[in-house]
């Protein structure tokens, strides 16, 4: 047993759980460390998943069931706040105590949702009927979609790109999942409230995944969701607590002013506080979008600038669940390769890559 390599996976969301499962299947001893008291991350708060409307709890149960079939050590309510290298080992500290010594660490600390109050012009946190996409999922879970006055909304507006692709917020990146989340939520709204009008206000529809474009078409053809190409410039509250919104329909070139009973802000993804803290403590590089920078976007998408420290899932960039699962599996493969190669082999590999790059450059 003493020869079994030990790995710490930081973060108990989808990426962390899947990485742990795969590493354990490869024969490694894995500690899955989560800051909260439960595993599951953001998915715990979601109602259904795109594009197939799979219940989120069904997906999570499967993941947890797979995890339970392993001997991964699950350690919840643990905050790692210091890091030290001891020769080839990586020591993690929980408060002042040494928490564990590992051969490799996988950072799977994920994302935080954009704090919608920062888009001041939408009045989130000030106007009661302005909510976020996460808030709408909570309403879906409770099977009750009501306005602040307790009424069924007759008209709902969904605003895309809140905190994403927005220079004013300092976030130039696309969060990738908001467009398809809006399509999914719009359909769910129409399914649950057939007499409610649903409008989506978008910049571009980025339907990058399999079945996404088809779902977008279905939303229009089957569910009569109306898509308006234009950013909302301002939301204000009327005396009856409905929300007055102003925008421009850029396809018709007309200004638009309308009232909605509920305004839903499709909040984007930012690196989580945990990602930022762990990244700084372990000396990881950050990208322009403030997510963790990987060694190479194409060929080393799980490796970082620090030897023995890997990244899995949305700690490195916004991604959907399918991509997160793939990224987590790739992280396990990268860790496995790292632990099975000797220093000499790694040195040679580095040199080979460097020579190859040099040759390509000269060419």
């Amino acid at each position, binding site marked *: 047993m003493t020869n079994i390599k030990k790995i710490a996976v930081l973060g108990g969301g989808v990426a962390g759980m899947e990485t742990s499962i795969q590493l354990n299947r490869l024969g490694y001893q894995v500690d899955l460390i989560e800051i909260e008291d439960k595993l599951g991350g953001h998915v715990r708060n979601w109602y259904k998943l795109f594009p197939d409307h799979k219940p989120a709890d069904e997906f999570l149960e499967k993941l947890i069931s797979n995890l339970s079939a392993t001997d991964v050590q699950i350690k919840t309510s643990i905050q790692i706040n210091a890091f030290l290298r001891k020769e080839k080992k990586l020591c993690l500290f929980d408060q002042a105590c040494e928490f564990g010594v590992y051969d490799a660490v996988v950072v799977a600390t994920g994302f935080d949702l954009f704090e919608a*109050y920062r888009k001041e012009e939408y009045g989130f*946190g*000030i*106007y009661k009927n302005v909510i976020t996409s996460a808030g709408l999922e909570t309403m879906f879970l409770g099977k009750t979609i009501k306005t602040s006055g307790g009424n069924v909304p007759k008209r709902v507006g969904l605003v895309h790109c809140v905190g994403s692709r927005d220079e004013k917020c300092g976030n130039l990146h696309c969060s990738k999942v908001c467009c398809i989340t809006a399509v999914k939520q719009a359909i769910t709204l129409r399914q649950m409230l057939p007499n409610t009008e649903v409008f989506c206000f978008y910049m571009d529809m980025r339907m990058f995944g399999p079945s996404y474009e088809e779902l977008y078409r279905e939303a229009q053809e089957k569910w009569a969701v109306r898509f308006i190409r234009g950013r909302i410039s301002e939301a204000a509250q009327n*005396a009856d607590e409905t929300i007055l919104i102003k925008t421009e329909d850029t396809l018709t070139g007309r200004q638009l002013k309308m009232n909605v009973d509920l305004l839903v802000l499709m909040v984007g993804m930012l690196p989580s506080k945990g990602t930022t803290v762990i990244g700084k403590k372990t000396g990881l590089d950050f990208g322009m979008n403030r997510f963790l920078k990987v060694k190479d976007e194409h060929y080393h998408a799980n490796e970082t600038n620090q030897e023995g420290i890997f990244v899995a899932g949305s700690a490195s960039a916004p991604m959907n669940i399918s991509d997160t699962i793939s990224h987590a599996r790739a992280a396990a493969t990268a860790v496995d390769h790292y632990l099975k190669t000797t220093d000499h082999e790694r040195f040679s590999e580095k040199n080979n890559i460097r020579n190859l790059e040099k040759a390509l450059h000269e060419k």
Partner: protein
Amino acid sequence: MENNNQKFIWREYQKEIADDHFFYVRSCIRQAFFPGSETFFLSFMRNQLGKDVFEDARHTTCTGIGFHGDVVPHETIMTVVARHFALMTEAGYRHVAISCVTSFGIYSEILETWKHFPEIEEKIHQKLILATGRDFNKPDTIAHTSDIIYKFRNEVAAKMKYPLINLNTGEPLKVVEHIGCHYSKMFPQYGVGGAEFPQVLAGMIKAWGGEVVDYPERRHCCGFGFRQYLVQANRGYSAANSKKKFDSMQSYEPDFILCNCPGCTMFMDKWQYTIAELEDTVYGKEGLGIPVLTYEELAGLVLGYDPWDLGLQMHQIPVETLLDKLGINYDPEKKFITQKGENIGTPLIPQHYNIGLKTAGTHSGCC
């Protein structure tokens, strides 16, 4: 939840406002339209708070109206403002107190331009030296005078004689606050509370006992918009924008409107009369128009200054409804009599605003 988030937003937009030793720059138009406002500011700062506020008679227009009207080039206005800074530097001051929101926007824009393009600042140094032989230091802080009254709002509250409470109902007065676009919409970080939920006037209203009305078109332009008004053919557009705001606030029955921009105060006040003449629409709960005040006038009123000493007789919308709600004693006979006892003339009374009939005797003169 809502208040906490609102406070959070305000906290993100707190600016440094100097405590003392101000170089004061007046507005071009305020002395004509709201003649008591600047006088009150100087009196309050110097006599009640004991602050040092310096004025230089050589200070001129910033040329902001000409700049926004496309008749004054950018380099010219920068050189004019640089001269103001030179006067400030020569007098030994480092903090500018600006009475006009247009000027405040101009100063902010120029300082931001110089921050990002230092070569332009250098060029303006050379131009000013060439033209006047003067050179300048940039100010350490710039504040609009509403920022300064906001900073000292609690000092006003401590000496307050007439809080913003309706004497008849015991309820807080409902107040529409309207900041000038050039106060913080160009550079939110230069305004107290930013642009979306500005705190500068709201903070005064709350500190003095009133309640802020948040109505849907709160952020909309007052209707002035330099080219909308300066080009005569566009004035209908100007009035239409004001009408949009009045229509939006009407159902909230505000007791008065508080502004910090000369243009906004003027247009919110005067366009109500125009709309009444054009459309027979009169705003305000009593159908007598909604009084419009500057923040200095409001501070003066709550401190117990005589309304006519504050220049409130120069307003288009009579303020008597508001004075009555506040329980302020005033002499209607003295409304149009100067301190020297001269009659400045009674305005022709628009039929829609019949409150003036209490004092109107001759209907002579004209507003």
